[in-house]
């Protein structure tokens, strides 16, 4: 690997303080430290260190996301060809999806890392690894047909306002990936909801969409028909889709054979990623479990009252649709924007799941309540932590009083 090291050594003078391309120093440093774990040794404190670093933590999260991502790619193709009633192999499906997905991923990374590198240079520190995960999360929670420039603008907004204004990775209040999605959701509503965007329907010339084709997501259908009020004539047809054999049957939503944001559909593979994260000790099982319980409790309460068909949906089914699973495993568990105390994690996770289902059912304008609930709980997390820490302080002062 000597020759690789030589390349870095040769180019370093160019980007160092006095060099002509100093602005590229963070990029140079990022790539070099990626290729080679640096030769830095301990100077103060403990003389030996754990092999783990943020790069390892982040790559572990990315590994956990890969199954859902690959499935999402395949699903894009499957839905596309399905809409035209065309026959396709799994490879056709996958390649079609990959070609849609790769530009999205590339644009997100380019936009986000561009901002990160600029700030790293400005602040004279290294590029943080946080965006490695955010940059993959963002395309996975976008609809397939969103224009690339919108992704770029949303990403830049998220990194700038969601993260860098607070001081960068580790300091942010909100989950950057969700900030990007929230921005896109409110700035470009027509591209983020409805029944036109979740399946790519740009067919070859002359291709016809199949009869009875619907490109809506399960959430969209529920929100725009069932949630609109009682005695809506469309209710029955929609609810039939949720029965066995329907488009949004329990099995289909579990496996992910439904329209939706690219990476969010397969509960199975997301849960697999979640288990991997928990097993690796990178994702908090406390947040995931309490999030699940929170959602289940709210859905069960709704189910018990069942004023409309949406509320009457089987609680488990309720959790399998929309972004609930994805939010639980990959969004709520963000250690920086989530609750930072161990007790707080239970409260934070529970409430995020609880409010997620509540918002989605009560407010048809926001079918994706999970995103809003997690962002809301991101803001509330410091408050939760405050009370948890306060209890420790009280315990200590009580001990002092009794001493």
């Amino acid at each position, binding site marked *: 690997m000597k020759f690789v090291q030589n390349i870095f050594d040769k180019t370093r003078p160019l980007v160092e303080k006095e060099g002509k391309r100093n602005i590229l120093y963070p990029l140079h440093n990022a790539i070099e430290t990626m290729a*080679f774990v640096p030769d830095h040794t*301990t100077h103060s*404190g403990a003389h030996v260190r754990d092999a783990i670093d943020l790069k390892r*933590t982040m790559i572990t999260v990315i590994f956990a996301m890969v199954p859902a991502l690959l499935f999402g790619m395949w699903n894009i193709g499957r839905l596309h060809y399905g809409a035209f009633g065309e026959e396709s192999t799994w490879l056709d499906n996958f390649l079609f999806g990959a070609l849609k997905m790769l530009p999205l991923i590339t644009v997100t990374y380019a936009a986000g890392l561009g901002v990160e590198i600029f700030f790293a240079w400005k602040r004279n520190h290294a590029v943080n690894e946080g965006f490695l995960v955010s940059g993959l999360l963002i395309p996975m929670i976008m609809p397939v047909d969103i224009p690339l420039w919108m992704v770029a603008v949303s990403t830049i907004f998220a990194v700038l306002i969601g993260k860098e204004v607070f001081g960068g990775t580790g300091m942010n209040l909100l989950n950057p990936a969700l900030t990007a999605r929230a921005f896109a959701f409110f700035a470009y509503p027509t591209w983020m909801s409805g029944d036109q965007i979740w399946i790519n329907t740009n067919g070859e010339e002359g291709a016809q969409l199949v009869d009875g084709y619907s490109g809506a997501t399960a959430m969209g259908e529920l929100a725009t028909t069932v949630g609109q009020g009682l005695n809506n004539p469309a209710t029955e047809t929609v609810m039939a889709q949720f029965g066995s054999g329907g488009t949004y049957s329990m099995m289909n939503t579990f496996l992910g054979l439904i329209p939706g944001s690219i990476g969010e559909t397969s509960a199975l593979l997301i849960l697999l990623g979640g288990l991997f994260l928990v097993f*690796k000790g990178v994702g908090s099982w406390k947040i995931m479990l309490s999030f699940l319980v929170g959602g289940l409790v709210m859905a069960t309460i709704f189910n018990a009252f069942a004023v409309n068909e949406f509320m009457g949906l089987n609680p488990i089914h309720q959790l399998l649709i929309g972004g609930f699973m994805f939010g639980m495993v990959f969004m709520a568990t963000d250690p920086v924007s989530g609750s*930072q105390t161990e007790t707080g994690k239970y409260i934070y996770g529970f409430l995020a799941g609880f409010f997620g289902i509540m918002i989605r059912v009560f407010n048809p304008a926001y079918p994706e309540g999970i995103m809003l609930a997690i962002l809301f709980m991101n803001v509330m997390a410091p408050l939760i932590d405050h009370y948890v820490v306060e209890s420790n302080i009280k315990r200590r002062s009580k001990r002092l009083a009794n*001493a």
Partner: protein
Amino acid sequence: MSQTYKIRKGHNIKLIGDAPQKHLEAVASSTYAVSPLDFPGITPKLVVKAGTQVNAGDVLFYDKDRPEVLICSPVSGEVTEIKRGAKRKILQVIILADSDTKYADHGSFDLKSTNRDATAAHFANTGVGALITSRPYGVAASMHELPRDIFVNGVQSGPLAGDLAYQLAGKEIEVAAAIEALSLMTAGKVYVSQDGDAPSLELLSHKKATSIQFTGKHPKGLVGTQIAQAAPMNKGEIVWTVNAVDLPVIGHAFLTGAYAPTYLVAVAGSRAKNAGYATMTQGVGLSSFVSTNINNDNTRMIAGDVLTGTTLEENGFLSFGKSQITAIPEGNSTEFFGWVLPGFGKFSTNRAFWSWLFPNRKYDLDTNIHGEERAFVVTGEYDKFIPMDIFPQQLLRCILIGDVEKMEQLGIYEVLPEDFALAEVACTSKLPLQQIVRDGLMDLRKEMM
């Protein structure tokens, strides 16, 4: 029946290079050095200058702010040099030792007397008072303080720690005298801790001491852990701590009146050519010891263990109060894509690397940091290594922003840098936790003085 506490949080770092129970050649040198840097929080005021003749047990310097804290010479001879650094900061007092050590005679002390002031004076004058650490700040104790309790730490659980039974063998009388003397210094209890996972040490049980046992993982051997379990500290309280390995030196000073800080030092680590135990006096020049016993090619020599020890120079001197020398390889080499590889052979305290499959493997760890410093990102990581009722990350944040009131509320009085050592090893963001805590404590102390 003594109380037993099980320490569940923590981690035993298993390294290769244990010290076998054999005596190495006693270490002798003509030069000795005492460094004020071994005493955090002390502003040294010199009593000697180059050319002064001293006996073992004569004062070399004292603390400017607390003149009753005396640091004494470990050997007799002539002070040849005062080494200074930037801003004339005193780095070392170098002593050219006599061939036969002459001891300053402070007279033997009648331990039957229960006079605290006389006991305190004997502690200070013989130099053994400096072997007592005073919490909350982790500084050499002043004999003017009235400690709530005294903790004698008889658990050595750090990486490659020496075997206390071996190091104390034959010192029954001195140990008993030391515990007796300590008991005169507090109105509270003298706790003596023992390792519940090792055979109990008869010589540490004393009728004036409360025996406590600790089982489980390191940091059971940190006195901070022991205090937190047995009798947590509160704001305003002072607790003294003494390492059991120092008891013979204290006992000797009370029995004979002489200061003779000689230890059976555990020599360990993968770079120790001859591992074992060597008799050394504090401050001894180590150059000949290093050339015979250490493979010194790109090696980090540490006085103490890899968690809390201080780096030793090749021609350095045995630091104050240390009874272990660890030699491990330096890690100044890069690793190609080290963070992506499965890492079957990598030391890690969590399962992100596949080495978790082999929990009993012993590692030859080097000093590489394995990454770059980052902001706090991962949460709940430190809690796993600090068996105390505190919120480590929140406390560290308060220290970093200098919020004194919050630091107090979050329990900074209960911790010393060493209590954060394991968390520092495990820290994903590679933050210098021990340094942060040390700075926080010193700022706090300045505020309080």
